[in-house]
Protein backbone atom coordinates (compact mmCIF):
# COMPACT_ATOMS: atom_id res chain seq x y z
CA UNK A 1 0.00 0.00 0.00
CA UNK A 2 2.82 2.36 0.96
CA UNK A 3 4.71 1.38 -2.14
CA UNK A 4 1.61 1.93 -4.24
CA UNK A 5 1.09 5.45 -2.85
CA UNK A 6 4.74 6.26 -3.35
CA UNK A 7 4.55 5.07 -6.95
CA UNK A 8 1.48 7.20 -7.53
CA UNK A 9 3.12 10.28 -6.08
CA UNK A 10 6.27 9.65 -8.09
CA UNK A 11 4.24 9.15 -11.26
CA UNK A 12 2.33 12.37 -10.58
CA UNK A 13 5.55 14.28 -10.01
CA UNK A 14 7.02 12.99 -13.25
CA UNK A 15 3.89 13.92 -15.19
CA UNK A 16 3.86 17.40 -13.63
CA UNK A 17 7.54 17.88 -14.42
CA UNK A 18 7.02 16.78 -18.01
CA UNK A 19 4.05 19.13 -18.36
CA UNK A 20 6.15 21.98 -17.00
CA UNK A 21 8.98 21.24 -19.40
CA UNK A 22 6.49 20.99 -22.26
CA UNK A 23 4.94 24.33 -21.41
CA UNK A 24 8.31 26.01 -21.07
CA UNK A 25 9.54 24.69 -24.38
CA UNK A 26 6.24 24.97 -26.22
CA UNK A 27 6.56 26.39 -29.69
CA UNK A 28 4.56 29.52 -30.28
CA UNK A 29 5.84 30.71 -33.61
CA UNK A 30 3.22 31.96 -36.06
CA UNK A 31 3.50 29.07 -38.45
CA UNK A 32 6.64 29.27 -40.55
CA UNK A 33 6.36 33.02 -40.98
CA UNK A 34 9.40 35.18 -40.32
CA UNK A 35 11.28 38.10 -41.80
CA UNK A 36 14.09 37.08 -44.16
CA UNK A 37 17.48 38.45 -43.22
CA UNK A 38 21.10 37.74 -43.89
CA UNK A 39 22.41 38.60 -40.46
CA UNK A 40 21.34 39.01 -36.87
CA UNK A 41 20.44 41.26 -35.23
CA UNK A 42 18.37 42.93 -37.93
CA UNK A 43 16.55 46.23 -37.60
CA UNK A 44 12.86 46.47 -38.41
CA UNK A 45 11.37 49.85 -39.17
CA UNK A 46 8.10 50.50 -37.34
CA UNK A 47 6.05 53.28 -38.90
CA UNK A 48 4.07 54.85 -36.09
CA UNK A 49 0.83 56.07 -37.68
CA UNK A 50 -1.04 56.32 -34.40
CA UNK A 51 -2.42 59.45 -32.79
CA UNK A 52 -0.46 61.04 -29.95
CA UNK A 53 -2.44 59.27 -27.23
CA UNK A 54 -0.79 56.02 -28.31
CA UNK A 55 2.78 57.33 -28.28
CA UNK A 56 3.74 55.80 -24.93
CA UNK A 57 2.37 52.35 -25.68
CA UNK A 58 4.00 52.18 -29.11
CA UNK A 59 7.32 53.46 -27.80
CA UNK A 60 7.24 50.95 -24.95
CA UNK A 61 6.52 48.00 -27.21
CA UNK A 62 9.22 48.97 -29.71
CA UNK A 63 11.64 49.16 -26.79
CA UNK A 64 10.46 45.86 -25.28
CA UNK A 65 10.72 43.82 -28.47
CA UNK A 66 14.11 45.37 -29.20
CA UNK A 67 15.40 43.65 -26.06
CA UNK A 68 15.53 40.53 -28.22
CA UNK A 69 19.02 39.49 -29.17
CA UNK A 70 18.01 38.81 -32.77
CA UNK A 71 16.19 41.98 -33.75
CA UNK A 72 15.94 45.68 -33.10
CA UNK A 73 13.09 48.01 -33.94
CA UNK A 74 13.40 51.58 -35.07
CA UNK A 75 10.33 53.76 -34.81
CA UNK A 76 9.67 56.40 -37.44
CA UNK A 77 6.76 58.79 -37.46
CA UNK A 78 4.12 58.18 -40.11
CA UNK A 79 0.94 59.81 -41.30
CA UNK A 80 -2.34 58.88 -39.65
CA UNK A 81 -3.99 58.96 -43.07
CA UNK A 82 -5.22 55.65 -44.40
CA UNK A 83 -5.55 54.15 -40.93
CA UNK A 84 -8.59 52.10 -41.89
CA UNK A 85 -6.57 49.97 -44.27
CA UNK A 86 -3.24 50.65 -42.50
CA UNK A 87 -1.27 49.56 -45.53
CA UNK A 88 2.39 49.28 -44.56
CA UNK A 89 5.33 50.22 -46.78
CA UNK A 90 7.21 47.23 -48.17
CA UNK A 91 9.66 45.71 -45.75
CA UNK A 92 8.25 47.52 -42.74
CA UNK A 93 5.69 47.35 -39.95
CA UNK A 94 3.00 50.00 -39.61
CA UNK A 95 0.87 50.68 -36.53
CA UNK A 96 -2.47 52.50 -36.80
CA UNK A 97 -5.36 53.29 -34.50
CA UNK A 98 -8.94 54.15 -35.33
CA UNK A 99 -12.46 53.53 -34.11
CA UNK A 100 -12.76 50.45 -36.28
CA UNK A 101 -16.12 49.68 -34.67
CA UNK A 102 -17.36 46.95 -32.34
CA UNK A 103 -16.26 44.21 -34.67
CA UNK A 104 -15.16 41.68 -32.07
CA UNK A 105 -11.43 42.47 -31.95
CA UNK A 106 -9.46 44.99 -29.95
CA UNK A 107 -6.30 44.58 -32.00
CA UNK A 108 -5.50 43.00 -35.33
CA UNK A 109 -2.12 42.10 -36.79
CA UNK A 110 -1.61 41.34 -40.46
CA UNK A 111 1.31 40.17 -42.50
CA UNK A 112 1.95 39.68 -46.18
CA UNK A 113 4.22 36.90 -47.24
CA UNK A 114 6.32 36.25 -50.31
CA UNK A 115 6.47 32.94 -52.21
CA UNK A 116 9.23 31.77 -49.87
CA UNK A 117 7.00 32.24 -46.84
CA UNK A 118 8.87 35.28 -45.57
CA UNK A 119 7.11 38.28 -44.12
CA UNK A 120 7.33 41.32 -46.38
CA UNK A 121 5.05 43.71 -44.49
CA UNK A 122 3.30 43.80 -41.15
CA UNK A 123 0.59 45.97 -39.71
CA UNK A 124 -1.06 46.46 -36.36
CA UNK A 125 -4.51 47.96 -35.98
CA UNK A 126 -5.58 49.24 -32.56
CA UNK A 127 -9.34 49.45 -32.20
CA UNK A 128 -10.19 52.64 -30.30
CA UNK A 129 -13.86 51.63 -30.25
CA UNK A 130 -12.90 49.30 -27.40
CA UNK A 131 -9.52 50.58 -26.26
CA UNK A 132 -10.71 54.11 -25.54
CA UNK A 133 -13.31 52.76 -23.12
CA UNK A 134 -12.72 52.34 -19.39
CA UNK A 135 -13.35 48.58 -19.71
CA UNK A 136 -10.30 48.12 -21.91
CA UNK A 137 -7.99 50.91 -20.77
CA UNK A 138 -5.81 48.35 -18.98
CA UNK A 139 -5.47 46.36 -22.20
CA UNK A 140 -3.83 49.07 -24.30
CA UNK A 141 -0.18 48.25 -23.67
CA UNK A 142 -0.77 44.52 -23.94
CA UNK A 143 -2.62 44.83 -27.25
CA UNK A 144 0.20 46.80 -28.89
CA UNK A 145 2.72 44.32 -27.54
CA UNK A 146 0.77 41.28 -28.76
CA UNK A 147 -0.01 42.57 -32.24
CA UNK A 148 3.57 43.68 -32.86
CA UNK A 149 4.63 40.27 -31.56
CA UNK A 150 2.50 38.72 -34.31
CA UNK A 151 4.11 41.03 -36.85
CA UNK A 152 7.51 39.53 -36.05
CA UNK A 153 6.33 35.93 -36.28
CA UNK A 154 5.01 35.02 -32.84
CA UNK A 155 1.76 33.23 -32.09
CA UNK A 156 -0.12 33.24 -28.79
CA UNK A 157 1.52 31.29 -26.00
CA UNK A 158 -1.90 30.28 -24.76
CA UNK A 159 -5.50 30.88 -25.83
CA UNK A 160 -7.39 30.29 -22.59
CA UNK A 161 -8.39 33.39 -20.66
CA UNK A 162 -9.30 31.33 -17.59
CA UNK A 163 -6.01 29.61 -16.78
CA UNK A 164 -3.01 30.92 -14.87
CA UNK A 165 -1.30 33.92 -16.44
CA UNK A 166 2.01 33.29 -18.16
CA UNK A 167 2.96 36.94 -17.67
CA UNK A 168 3.45 37.51 -21.38
CA UNK A 169 1.53 39.75 -23.75
CA UNK A 170 1.38 36.73 -26.06
CA UNK A 171 -0.82 34.94 -23.50
CA UNK A 172 -4.56 35.61 -23.51
CA UNK A 173 -5.57 37.02 -20.14
CA UNK A 174 -7.96 39.71 -18.96
CA UNK A 175 -6.34 42.19 -19.06
CA UNK A 176 -3.47 41.33 -21.37
CA UNK A 177 -0.02 41.36 -19.79
CA UNK A 178 1.82 44.48 -21.02
CA UNK A 179 5.21 43.01 -21.94
CA UNK A 180 6.85 39.93 -23.49
CA UNK A 181 8.41 37.32 -21.23
CA UNK A 182 11.62 35.31 -21.47
CA UNK A 183 9.91 32.57 -23.44
CA UNK A 184 8.95 35.06 -26.15
CA UNK A 185 12.57 36.12 -26.52
CA UNK A 186 13.66 32.47 -26.58
CA UNK A 187 11.10 31.77 -29.28
CA UNK A 188 12.40 34.66 -31.37
CA UNK A 189 15.91 33.26 -31.08
CA UNK A 190 14.59 29.90 -32.30
CA UNK A 191 12.65 31.44 -35.19
CA UNK A 192 15.57 33.55 -36.33
CA UNK A 193 18.35 31.04 -35.65
CA UNK A 194 19.08 30.44 -39.32
CA UNK A 195 19.96 33.05 -41.92
CA UNK A 196 18.49 33.65 -45.36
CA UNK A 197 19.89 34.54 -48.76
CA UNK A 198 18.13 37.93 -48.85
CA UNK A 199 16.45 40.50 -46.64
CA UNK A 200 12.70 40.98 -46.75
CA UNK A 201 12.85 43.97 -44.42
CA UNK A 202 13.90 47.53 -45.06
CA UNK A 203 15.54 49.71 -42.46
CA UNK A 204 14.97 53.41 -42.74
CA UNK A 205 17.09 56.05 -41.10
CA UNK A 206 16.70 57.30 -37.58
CA UNK A 207 14.20 60.03 -36.89
CA UNK A 208 16.57 62.30 -35.02
CA UNK A 209 17.93 63.78 -38.21
CA UNK A 210 21.49 63.00 -37.34
CA UNK A 211 21.87 60.79 -40.33
CA UNK A 212 24.17 57.86 -40.45
CA UNK A 213 21.35 55.35 -40.66
CA UNK A 214 21.38 52.80 -43.39
CA UNK A 215 19.27 53.56 -46.39
CA UNK A 216 17.77 50.13 -46.73
CA UNK A 217 18.46 46.49 -46.09
CA UNK A 218 16.38 45.26 -48.98
CA UNK A 219 18.18 42.98 -51.35
CA UNK A 220 15.39 40.58 -52.16
CA UNK A 221 15.31 39.05 -55.63
CA UNK A 222 13.54 41.24 -58.20
CA UNK A 223 9.79 41.12 -57.72
CA UNK A 224 10.03 39.39 -54.35
CA UNK A 225 9.85 40.50 -50.79
CA UNK A 226 10.63 44.17 -50.31
CA UNK A 227 11.96 44.41 -53.85
CA UNK A 228 8.65 44.64 -55.63
CA UNK A 229 8.23 46.95 -58.57
CA UNK A 230 7.65 50.53 -57.59
CA UNK A 231 9.21 50.26 -54.19
CA UNK A 232 11.82 52.78 -53.14
CA UNK A 233 14.28 53.98 -52.19
CA UNK A 234 15.93 53.64 -55.55
CA UNK A 235 19.37 54.63 -56.67
CA UNK A 236 18.56 57.93 -58.33
CA UNK A 237 18.14 61.27 -56.62
CA UNK A 238 14.76 61.80 -58.25
CA UNK A 239 13.41 58.80 -56.35
CA UNK A 240 14.56 60.09 -52.98
CA UNK A 241 12.33 63.15 -53.00
CA UNK A 242 13.46 66.48 -51.64
CA UNK A 243 16.57 67.20 -49.65
CA UNK A 244 16.14 67.97 -45.97
CA UNK A 245 19.67 69.26 -45.68
CA UNK A 246 23.28 68.34 -46.16
CA UNK A 247 26.06 68.20 -43.63
CA UNK A 248 29.46 67.49 -45.14
CA UNK A 249 29.12 64.37 -47.24
CA UNK A 250 25.86 63.34 -45.57
CA UNK A 251 22.49 64.36 -46.99
CA UNK A 252 18.97 63.41 -46.00
CA UNK A 253 16.02 63.16 -48.40
CA UNK A 254 12.32 62.65 -47.85
CA UNK A 255 9.66 61.34 -50.21
CA UNK A 256 6.01 61.24 -49.20
CA UNK A 257 3.71 58.79 -50.96
CA UNK A 258 0.11 59.49 -51.80
CA UNK A 259 -0.98 57.50 -48.74
CA UNK A 260 1.16 59.66 -46.50
CA UNK A 261 3.95 57.16 -46.01
CA UNK A 262 7.27 58.91 -45.62
CA UNK A 263 10.43 57.42 -47.07
CA UNK A 264 13.62 58.85 -45.66
CA UNK A 265 16.88 58.21 -47.48
CA UNK A 266 20.31 58.95 -46.07
CA UNK A 267 23.00 59.48 -48.65
CA UNK A 268 26.72 59.58 -48.13
CA UNK A 269 28.14 61.33 -51.16
CA UNK A 270 31.41 60.33 -52.72
CA UNK A 271 34.34 62.70 -52.44
CA UNK A 272 34.01 65.68 -54.75
CA UNK A 273 30.28 65.23 -55.31
Amino acid at each position, binding site marked *: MLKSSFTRVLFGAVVAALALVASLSADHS*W*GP*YQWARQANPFTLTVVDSTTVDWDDEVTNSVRDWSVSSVLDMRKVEGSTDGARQCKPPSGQIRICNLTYG*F*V*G*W*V*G*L*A*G*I*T*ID*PNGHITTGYTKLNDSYLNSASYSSWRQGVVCQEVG*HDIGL*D*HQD*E*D*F*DNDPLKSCMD*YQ*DPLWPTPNAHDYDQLEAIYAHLDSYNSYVTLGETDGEGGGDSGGCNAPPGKGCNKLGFGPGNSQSEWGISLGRRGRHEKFIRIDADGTRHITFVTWADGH
Partner: protein
Amino acid sequence: MIPLRRFTLLCLALLTSVAATCAGPSSNEISRERAIEIARSQLSFSPDTIDATRTDSGGRNVWRVTFRGRLPGQPPGLFETLIVEVDRITGEIIGIART
Protein backbone atom coordinates in the same frame (compact mmCIF):
# COMPACT_ATOMS: atom_id res chain seq x y z
CA MET B 1 -36.25 58.34 -82.24
CA ILE B 2 -32.55 58.41 -82.80
CA PRO B 3 -31.82 59.50 -79.24
CA LEU B 4 -34.00 56.61 -78.00
CA ARG B 5 -32.05 54.16 -80.13
CA ARG B 6 -28.81 55.58 -78.83
CA PHE B 7 -30.10 55.32 -75.28
CA THR B 8 -31.07 51.69 -75.84
CA LEU B 9 -27.67 50.88 -77.27
CA LEU B 10 -26.00 52.61 -74.36
CA CYS B 11 -28.08 50.61 -71.91
CA LEU B 12 -27.21 47.39 -73.70
CA ALA B 13 -23.53 48.27 -73.58
CA LEU B 14 -23.78 49.04 -69.89
CA LEU B 15 -25.64 45.81 -69.18
CA THR B 16 -23.04 43.82 -71.07
CA SER B 17 -20.29 45.49 -69.11
CA VAL B 18 -22.00 44.85 -65.78
CA ALA B 19 -22.72 41.25 -66.74
CA ALA B 20 -19.07 40.72 -67.59
CA THR B 21 -18.00 42.19 -64.28
CA CYS B 22 -20.45 40.16 -62.27
CA ALA B 23 -19.81 36.96 -64.13
CA GLY B 24 -18.89 33.93 -62.10
CA PRO B 25 -15.39 32.74 -61.44
CA SER B 26 -13.05 32.15 -64.31
CA SER B 27 -12.50 28.50 -65.08
CA ASN B 28 -8.97 28.47 -63.69
CA GLU B 29 -9.96 29.96 -60.36
CA ILE B 30 -9.93 27.86 -57.21
CA SER B 31 -13.30 27.25 -55.64
CA ARG B 32 -14.58 28.84 -52.46
CA GLU B 33 -14.44 25.44 -50.76
CA ARG B 34 -10.82 24.92 -51.82
CA ALA B 35 -9.88 28.40 -50.57
CA ILE B 36 -11.44 27.66 -47.19
CA GLU B 37 -9.62 24.35 -47.06
CA ILE B 38 -6.31 26.12 -47.73
CA ALA B 39 -7.06 28.83 -45.18
CA ARG B 40 -7.95 26.27 -42.52
CA SER B 41 -4.27 25.34 -42.29
CA GLN B 42 -3.79 28.61 -40.40
CA LEU B 43 -6.45 27.96 -37.76
CA SER B 44 -5.56 27.56 -34.11
CA PHE B 45 -9.13 27.68 -32.77
CA SER B 46 -12.49 26.17 -33.54
CA PRO B 47 -14.41 28.61 -35.74
CA ASP B 48 -18.11 29.33 -35.27
CA THR B 49 -18.46 31.18 -38.55
CA ILE B 50 -16.62 31.03 -41.86
CA ASP B 51 -16.95 33.62 -44.58
CA ALA B 52 -15.22 33.78 -47.96
CA THR B 53 -15.44 36.68 -50.36
CA ARG B 54 -13.81 37.48 -53.67
CA THR B 55 -11.73 40.64 -53.55
CA ASP B 56 -8.33 41.98 -54.54
CA SER B 57 -5.30 42.53 -52.39
CA GLY B 58 -2.11 44.21 -53.49
CA GLY B 59 -3.15 43.91 -57.11
CA ARG B 60 -3.94 40.21 -56.89
CA ASN B 61 -7.33 38.53 -57.04
CA VAL B 62 -7.87 36.69 -53.79
CA TRP B 63 -10.36 34.81 -51.70
CA ARG B 64 -10.53 36.55 -48.33
CA VAL B 65 -11.50 33.86 -45.87
CA THR B 66 -12.58 35.01 -42.40
CA PHE B 67 -12.95 32.67 -39.44
CA ARG B 68 -14.51 33.76 -36.15
CA GLY B 69 -14.76 31.83 -32.94
CA ARG B 70 -14.85 32.14 -29.18
CA LEU B 71 -12.02 31.24 -26.84
CA PRO B 72 -12.45 29.93 -23.30
CA GLY B 73 -13.11 32.83 -20.96
CA GLN B 74 -12.97 35.44 -23.71
CA PRO B 75 -14.71 38.66 -22.61
CA PRO B 76 -18.24 39.10 -23.95
CA GLY B 77 -18.39 40.73 -27.34
CA LEU B 78 -14.89 39.72 -28.39
CA PHE B 79 -14.15 37.00 -30.94
CA GLU B 80 -11.00 35.35 -32.11
CA THR B 81 -10.66 36.36 -35.74
CA LEU B 82 -8.44 34.99 -38.49
CA ILE B 83 -8.41 36.41 -42.01
CA VAL B 84 -6.52 34.55 -44.72
CA GLU B 85 -6.04 35.87 -48.24
CA VAL B 86 -5.65 33.11 -50.80
CA ASP B 87 -4.64 33.83 -54.40
CA ARG B 88 -7.63 32.80 -56.52
CA ILE B 89 -5.46 31.38 -59.29
CA THR B 90 -2.48 29.78 -57.55
CA GLY B 91 -4.04 28.94 -54.19
CA GLU B 92 -1.06 30.57 -52.53
CA ILE B 93 -1.58 32.27 -49.16
CA ILE B 94 -0.40 35.84 -49.61
CA GLY B 95 -1.61 37.49 -46.43
CA ILE B 96 -2.87 36.63 -42.98
CA ALA B 97 -4.36 38.75 -40.22
CA ARG B 98 -5.29 37.72 -36.74
CA THR B 99 -6.32 39.06 -33.39
